[in-house]
């Protein structure tokens, strides 16, 4: 619970949270990169620092593109989730 509160407190202060929770565009790519960095550190995502440096701008760009292009799309509630999953008997 403490960890979850800590995690939420990080998100609350970040523009990333705004993008995720209210579907508003993040205020800037810099804010987004910082929020992702905080998330990586605080949530134990496990991204190495040098990898994060490589990817931060690209990831922030993808977040912005998703905010602009993907998230505003309203999907029918009856639409399925097309992932194949089958229960298997004695196959392990």
């Amino acid at each position, binding site marked *: 619970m403490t960890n979850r509160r800590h995690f939420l407190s990080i998100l609350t202060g970040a523009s990333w949270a705004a993008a*995720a929770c209210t579907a508003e565009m993040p205020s800037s790519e810099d804010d987004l990169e910082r929020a*992702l960095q905080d*998330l*990586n550190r605080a949530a134990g*995502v*496990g*991204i*190495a620092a040098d*990898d*994060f440096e*490589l*990817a931060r701008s*690209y*990831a922030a*760009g*993808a*977040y912005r*593109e*998703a905010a602009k*292009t*993907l*998230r505003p*799309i309203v*999907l029918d509630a009856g*639409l*399925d*989730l*097309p*992932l*194949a999953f*089958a229960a298997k008997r004695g196959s392990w």
Partner: protein
Amino acid sequence: MQDDVVYLSAVELVSRFREGSLDPVAVAEAHLERIAAIDPKLNCFITVTRERALERARTSAERYRAGKPASAVDGVPFAAKDIFATAEILTTHGSKLGRENVPSESATAVVKLEEVGAVLLGKLNLLEFATGSGTESGFGPTRNPWNQEYESGGSSSGSGAAPIAGLSTVTLGTDTGGSIRNPSGRCGIAGIKPTYGRVSRSGVTPLAWTLDHAGPMARTVRDVARFLGAMSGYDSKDPGSANEPVPDFEAAVETMGFLSGKTFAVAPELMAPVEPEVLRIVEEAIRHLESAGARRVDVSIPHAAAANIADEILIGAEAAVYHEQNMSRPETRSLMDPAVRLYVTAGRTYLATDYVKAQRLRLVLQKELTEALSGADVLVALNDPTLTAKLGEPTRLLGKEVRWFEYGTVNLGNITGFPAATVPCGFDSRGLPVGLQIYGRPFEEERVLAFAHGYEQTTEWHRRRPNL
């Protein structure tokens, strides 16, 4: 002699094998000689399986002498992207991480082709782990045969360059976000990303399980059709494999491979944004289709643009999971190309809700593409809106550097799983090929290939050869 032989199609080769005017050993030797002479400047091959190829070619020649060829691909040289596992042959995934990886079993697609006599010449270079633009192979870049200062497209880079360079009659590629169609277009050959599930991915190193496809690439559509037939079919080892009947693709190409009376759809969402030079070439191709008797209908795919970011999120997240162990160990991470680490790292940050939404969007796009195709045989689109970049330079669109999820028309094929082929439709002012993309309904590759063949046979683009 050598140049003539290496540029014969699979159809021509088999015809000459049958009549006895040529034999598979001579053809394999001609290709191996040309690989030795030409490939050092192109870097299409990571591994050449010379002795094995000659041995298989000799066995094939014996079958022809006995009047009992195994199939319509018996003795035909092919090469596989080095992401298809090959038993007792190095399989690197284009990565230094794979430089000692020698599988004990071959990928199903390779097994199926070898079982019916096709002769594997070797393993082809690719962008590391079949990722996208900006990535490099751990074995150096493949250069474009038309101008070696330019890239050959990706991720099936060697698979695109080898056929047009006369180094292999047919090649195998994989396509998760355009990786068969992009190098086919950049190198001026034909290729098809079949319907999801049509060709087994068992033994193919995954990039993204729900988007990966495998398919053939060659200088002619008919060769593509012939090899697609030999590779296709249900495989219980691939959870995504489809238990659908496999038609005779080549027969369909022969009987339906004309344009007169056909209808093709064009959607504005798949025609822009685009470099003016590319648009001019593709619009000319569309005018050609109409002048050859095909009828154009205009349609719309309202959410087509979202396919690009959806594909990015799905590939990123799935690849991040696949490479979790490679990325967690310094000794493996340090061997990976920085651009691959970038893609995989970005994918690790994506939201689960975006992933789920992207998956559900696939059904919307399937519906929209089905509706767009409802009054047409196929849908015609840009293959790639950008001009081929110089090696080491970023992709630009209308003067702006672009990330791959910000543009393009190929991801719709991966997101929907619908088949899409590419054929050459012209050359830009720098002498580099431009491709035309042709979409079809699921499990109707024969209709796509027949239309592509109809276009090909009324143009001369596929007859051009680079000066090597």
